[in-house]
């Protein structure tokens, strides 16, 4: 009885849904597309989630960012901090500061929920950069950049660069002492470009540092130019992904021409929505509970003050570290010079990025593989590529450590000179060692067929009830293409577990 009622209700809901879709279809002829969209299959693997986290934190950034923009005053005009009402931050009363800095102080102390919005924005930016960086590593180590996905690798790299700069410009908007110092270093790096550096710096800043029009321009760059580029490129990134379909790790039943996963609607969509909420939850929890960038402690920027412990946010640490490690060399001849910061600040990143942009084509030559791939490599299957990736990571870690030489030397109780020398050597030795270690680990993993984190390396021997000894897995050799544990990506049936159950069943 109730079943009949339920069926009638279901029928009614169905016809409502259908009439809405019909209305849409009469305008756009959209039914075929919408069906394929709702039925679209995405493979499932924990590492595929990180790109999603990046997208979710971008949404948090856009929402909180619009809110912040409503309060921020992009002006370098000098004012004296003297709030007449509301909360007053006493240590700053009577101090000179830019209007921009004052607006950030007011947002932090005098706008209800202003501080949590500001800090959630900053935390979401750090999460964004971390997710994007992890995502890039995942693509690299699993060979997802191979044909036909080279273009998306390039778009992704451009995105990573713009997102880093977007983070840096946002960090610089408050015009506090810390970020102003960073801006001045960037000015010096731009000024160091051969031939056009001085002109470029004058055009960007509207004159000699600090530049009369710089903060309004920085605001436009951070609020308009870069977000526009990021959203545009991300749209292209996702449309290409949609068109080409997601890659997947090899596993039982998976081939280059099929795709295994769950359909977008409803399960996948709900989970993705839940993940977005969770990213927002973490951003706001951090934003309200863990202080970040307390600009009122740094003070307003001026050109003659600086403090020890001046570090950029983590994602640009490698650049600042490179600027610290590069020796005192610069080149001068015919009345012209190529100044010191150009080499670590622009030339080195330029070379690194050129190699990264070219990697899909370098990889083709290394492996003489020009074919299209939808199934991913396991990192161990390509020891050379994995070695290069690990070397690059160690290189970046060494440079990132170098951006904190003053703090680390203090904590480690060694002279900063010694630490810098160690890191200077490390930037060469570390990647080489990392390459060979990674290479050996890959080949060892290939031999043992063990999973590096899910299971211990080594065999398990069991004794059956009649006294015979067997090595685990003997009866069910791993299928070709699987990782030796009988599960391609951790989602297939775990045959190893079943094998472990064997002794008991044999005992029965």
């Amino acid at each position: 009885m109730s079943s009949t009622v339920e069926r009638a209700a279901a029928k009614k809901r169905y016809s409502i849904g259908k009439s809405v879709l019909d209305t849409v279809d009469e305008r756009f002829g959209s039914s075929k597309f919408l069906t394929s969209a709702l039925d679209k299959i995405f493979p499932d693997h924990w590492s595929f989630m990180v790109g999603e986290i990046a997208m979710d934190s971008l949404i948090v950034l856009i929402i909180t960012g619009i809110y912040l923009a409503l309060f921020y005053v992009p002006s370098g005009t000098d004012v004296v901090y003297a709030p007449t009402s509301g909360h007053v931050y006493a240590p700053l009363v009577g101090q000179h500061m830019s209007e921009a800095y004052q607006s950030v102080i007011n947002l932090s102390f005098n706008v209800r929920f202003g501080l949590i919005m500001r800090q959630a924005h900053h935390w979401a930016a750090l999460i964004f950069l971390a997710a994007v960086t992890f995502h890039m590593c995942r693509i690299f180590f699993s060979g997802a950049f191979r044909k036909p996905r080279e273009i998306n690798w390039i778009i992704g790299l451009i995105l990573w660069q713009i997102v880093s700069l977007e983070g840096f410009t946002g960090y610089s908007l408050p015009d506090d002492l810390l970020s102003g110092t960073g801006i001045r270093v960037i000015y010096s790096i731009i000024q160091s470009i051969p031939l056009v550096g001085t002109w470029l710096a004058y055009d960007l800043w509207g004159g000699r540092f600090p530049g009369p029009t710089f903060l309004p321009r920085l605001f436009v760059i951070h609020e308009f130019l870069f977000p526009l580029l990021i959203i545009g490129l991300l749209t292209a990134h996702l449309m290409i992904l949609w068109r080409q379909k997601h890659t997947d790790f090899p596993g039982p039943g998976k081939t280059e021409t099929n795709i295994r996963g769950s359909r977008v609607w409803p399960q996948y969509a709900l989970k993705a929505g839940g993940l977005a909420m969770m990213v927002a939850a973490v951003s706001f929890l951090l934003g309200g509970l863990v202080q970040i960038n307390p600009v009122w402690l740094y003070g307003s920027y001026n050109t003659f003050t600086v403090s020890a412990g001046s570090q950029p946010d983590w994602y640009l640490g490698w650049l600042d570290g490179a600027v610290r490690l590069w020796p005192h060399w610069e080149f001068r001849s015919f009345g012209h010079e190529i100044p010191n910061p150009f080499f670590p600040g622009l030339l080195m990143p330029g070379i690194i990025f050129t190699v990264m942009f070219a990697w899909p084509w370098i990889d083709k030559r290394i492996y003489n593989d020009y074919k299209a791939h939808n199934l991913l490599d396991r990192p161990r299957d390509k020891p050379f590529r994995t070695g290069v990736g690990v070397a690059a990571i160690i290189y970046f870690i060494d440079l990132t450590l170098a951006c904190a030489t003053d703090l680390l030397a203090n904590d480690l109780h060694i002279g900063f000179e010694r630490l810098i020398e160690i890191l200077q050597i490390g930037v060469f030795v570390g990647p080489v060692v990392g390459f060979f270690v990674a290479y050996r680990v890959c080949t060892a993993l290939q031999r043992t067929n063990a999973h590096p984190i899910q299971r211990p390396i080594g065999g398990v021997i069991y004794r059956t009830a009649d006294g015979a000894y067997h090595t685990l897995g003997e009866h069910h050799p791993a299928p070709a293409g699987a990782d030796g544990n009988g599960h391609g990506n951790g989602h297939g049936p775990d045959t190893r577990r079943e094998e472990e159950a064997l002794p008991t069943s044999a005992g029965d």
Partner: protein
Amino acid sequence: MTTSEELTGVERDGHYAGETAGRLPPGRNPRHFGIDPGEPWPDDVPMDQDDTHWRFENDPKAAKRAENRIAVLFVLTLLSSAGLAWDYISNDGQTQVAAACFGVGLAALAVGLILMARDLMPGNEVTASRGHHHVSEDPDRVAVAESLARGIEPFARRAFLLKVLAPVGGAFSLALLFPIASLGPRPHRDLLQTKWGRFTRAVNQDGQPIRPNDLPVDGILTVFPEGYMDDALSPTLLINVGQAPFRIVKGNEGYNIGGIVAFSAICTHAACPAKLYNTQTHQLICPCHQSTFDVLDNAKPVFGPAPRSLPQLPLTVDAEGYIVSQSDYTQPVGPGFWNRG
């Protein structure tokens, strides 16, 4: 029973319950697995797939429990909204409370949605076809190449026009640089000079002029050319090295007032103020990149990335006994640039 007959279709297309699970014959329901009707069923896509099942479909009690669990989470979000309102209205928008409300509200919603997907929604893994890698058939490729050629060929025949077009494009691109040039003034000699000049008084942060006696031995003071505190290249360090042996380089004779020497505060590496002074070693250290300068050796860089000495400002004392500069710096201050000379 027309209703139930119609509903068979409803159930097939809309995936209610799990009643119509089973084989999906090739071509019959192609949208499921990316296979076009008429296309042969690929070997690597199983035919008997079914993703209409959900976790608790055979356990109504468990399903009810799952539903309740999710409801509790959604109620938590509701409470968080109330908490947020209370915090805003009665608690001055206290940040930690707001964080708890935002965080718990969003996280409960997140977990609720994910549990809903896991426990109550249909959708296990299925295998579908990728459909030809999305690569076009040869005739289509030929067709598009021909369409393109339609416009290319008449163009390529006009060799003269092409020759004209290249310089035109170049010239116009250059013309487009002029709006960009408006963004800032030309540097000219701007970076080669500071605001110090003949008998410019050195003043401290408060604008007060300085007498030599104001600076004790081992003292250090940031000074500015009077009236130009905001000029980024002018900040200068007055250091009293006392009796320590200061090496005077050729051409810099008479720059000091007793033990008082003046060096540009702007690091020659990346323009941070190199103001950390170690009175034991008489070294200036830049906090940004740890360039170290030996003051007694004419602020020569002894460690770090700075490539050049900090320029020295020639000092003297004016009629009223205040410290003034004899002239501007004799070399450009701050970091390098292309035409620094």
